[in-house]
């Protein structure tokens, strides 16, 4: 120990210990576990009978509300069943909500919710990893009897055993008819010279890429890697030609109305709700992307029975018609159009709520992606959108 005093030794040892501890913490402290669960082992004891409540997380502004004499569908449900509903509009974004419940559902604990509504691809993802309980078909007869054909059997839940669409929507093209001539196809949107630099596309990969796959002749529900690559290349070229001004989340309506963009990829409900008669939504010739937000019962939900009552209730045509009249999204329930005669006769022929059979026959869904493919595709897409 000549020349080295005690303190130096302590310091050296302390430093080494801190370094070692850091390394161990880094190596083992922050790994993320496999999130797969087996839903059959995560069934909670159902307390629906003694505890008449239901906890439902949904997107904001997605349900009708009591207004003077008008009795909302929710209030009516509570009156009919005696179940009190804790309705929370806390789903703002699929990824954000996923992050919110990931730690509980991924580790096999309760998310403290009985029901939530998520878009197709996120619903598919959660079902895939076993976070979602099977619905009892006998308790939701209306669902199976009344769901419209185009939503009946998505690839990720072909028999609607796990999910029930809340509302549905179409993705197509919108343009400002005061400023630009009619646009018929998605290809036109991407190539017409008078639209150069004046269009926007959606940041949602599945919506946009569905159309690009279709332009290349592929089927969005079932395409090959080559077809994907061709679609991405086409998008890249469109972008480098300066055709696309921006990729937007949901602020495109403002841009379209103010003339910053002339046309864009758009959700039917947004245009219907914008209330601007210059804004026109059209189904592209290549086909239409259809999506739905699906009600799902998570593992360890304690009021599954009540949730099923709720689902069954909303698949009654009159109830569905009331909801659709408020929302202006596409109603997933057969017979609602007829029931609309009584609810709001003006809306019976609204094609943004009740698309024609011809329109519905042209709809496509995006195929279910496994985790690795999803990441590749999202990565490819982010490269083009610049993020």
């Amino acid at each position, binding site marked *: 120990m000549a020349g080295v005093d005690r303190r130096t030794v302590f310091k050296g040892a302390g430093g080494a210990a801190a370094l070692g501890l850091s390394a161990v913490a880094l190596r083992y402290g922050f790994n993320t576990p496999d999130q797969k669960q087996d839903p059959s082992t995560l069934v909670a004891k159902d307390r629906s009978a003694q505890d008449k409540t239901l906890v439902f997380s949904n997107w904001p502004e997605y349900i009708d509300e009591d207004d003077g004499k008008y009795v909302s569908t929710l209030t009516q449900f509570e009156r009919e069943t005696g179940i009190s509903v804790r309705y929370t509009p806390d789903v703002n974004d699929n990824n954000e909500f996923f992050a919110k419940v990931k730690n509980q559902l991924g580790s096999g604990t309760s998310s403290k919710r009985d029901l939530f509504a998520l878009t197709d691809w996120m619903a598919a993802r959660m079902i895939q990893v076993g976070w979602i309980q099977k619905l009892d078909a006998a308790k939701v007869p209306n669902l199976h009897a009344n769901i419209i054909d185009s939503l009946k059997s998505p690839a990720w839940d072909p028999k609607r055993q796990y999910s029930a669409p809340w509302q549905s929507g179409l993705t197509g093209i919108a343009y400002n008819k005061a400023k630009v001539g009619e646009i018929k196809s998605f290809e036109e949107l991407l190539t017409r010279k008078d639209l150069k630099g004046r269009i926007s596309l959606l940041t949602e990969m599945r919506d946009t890429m569905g159309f690009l796959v279709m332009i290349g002749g592929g089927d969005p529900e079932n395409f090959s890697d080559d077809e994907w690559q061709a679609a991405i290349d086409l998008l890249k070229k469109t972008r480098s030609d300066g055709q696309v*001004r921006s990729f937007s989340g949901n602020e495109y309506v403002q841009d379209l109305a103010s003339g910053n963009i002339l046309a864009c990829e758009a959700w039917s409900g947004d245009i219907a709700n914008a209330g601007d008669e210059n804004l026109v939504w059209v189904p592209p010739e290549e086909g239409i992307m259809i999506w739905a937000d699906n009600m799902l019962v998570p593992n360890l939900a304690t009021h599954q029975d009540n949730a099923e009552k709720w689902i069954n209730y909303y698949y009654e045509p009159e109830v569905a018609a009331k909801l659709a009249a408020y929302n202006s999204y596409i109603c997933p329930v057969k017979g609602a159009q007829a029931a609309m005669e009584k609810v709001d006769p003006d809306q019976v022929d609204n094609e943004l709520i009740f698309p024609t059979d011809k329109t519905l026959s042209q709809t496509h869904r995006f195929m279910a992606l496994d985790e690795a493919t999803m990441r590749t595709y999202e990565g490819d897409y982010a490269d083009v959108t610049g993020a």
Partner: protein
Amino acid sequence: MTSTAGVPPVSTDDTTAAKPRGRKLTGYWLILPGAVWLLLFFVIPFYSLVASSLFDPKGSVLTGYEMTWHVGNYVDAFNQYKGQLGRSLLYAGLATLTCLVVGYVLAYAIAFKAGRWKNLMLVLVIAPFFTSFLLRTLSWKLILADDGWVVGVAQAIHLTDVLNIIGLTTTDDRLLATPFAVIAGLTYNFLPFMVLPLYASLEKVDIRLIEAAGDLYASPMRGFFKVTFPLSLPGVVAGTLLTFIPAAGDYVNAQLLGSTNTKMIGNSIQSLFTTQGDYATAGALSVILMVIIVAAVMAYVRTAGTEELV
């Protein structure tokens, strides 16, 4: 930075061994709240970030990630996103510079010329904070709209042409969805962070020093550059840091006001974390950004000669 957590502020001289044990420990007790705070809000998140930057990239959110010292993430992340990195630093730098010029004039006016309006003006500087960051940024979409009067005026005075030539806008004679709009948005959003520290240090400048400079043959202009400005340097340094650091990591302005060609590193990190679920690359990119900023800040502070700040 982390080492300060472990150093007790008391002397642990060997000769004091006879001291009562309680008193020796007092120092440790005193730093405990600070240490816990640092641990919870800095050390753990920082370790978590570093760990995720070294995750095996083959993992995923659902199948789980494992830390395997995969240093390659850094190389991949840097190579793939160097464009966005460079752009972020450039935009943040330009926005900081604009903030400095605009903010200095404003802070100077408030500190020396505002008189009894001083407090009102300070409130006005902070007033934008009463509305949400997102709303404020979105409102710039209306102000800079293609058919709006701002663009009209900019075209009339050929500002758009000038901006085109220096590459801040595109050839379409618009302002939105261009680098200009993103930099303008950053400048607008972070201006108060520049003005307040500048004001604080200008306000402290002794007016008598400026008089002394005048007495010693310095014209008002020379006096400003030789006395007022050097004395406000702590404010300049604090202001530029408070502006540059968050601006470099910002993604809202690029998302709302920019286009595909103006995405900043914040957008990439956000997309990697949430949409793509690629924690490894996202982590590596975050650490890279952090290292670049810390290095830049240290170099800057050293040049500015205000080491006391660090």
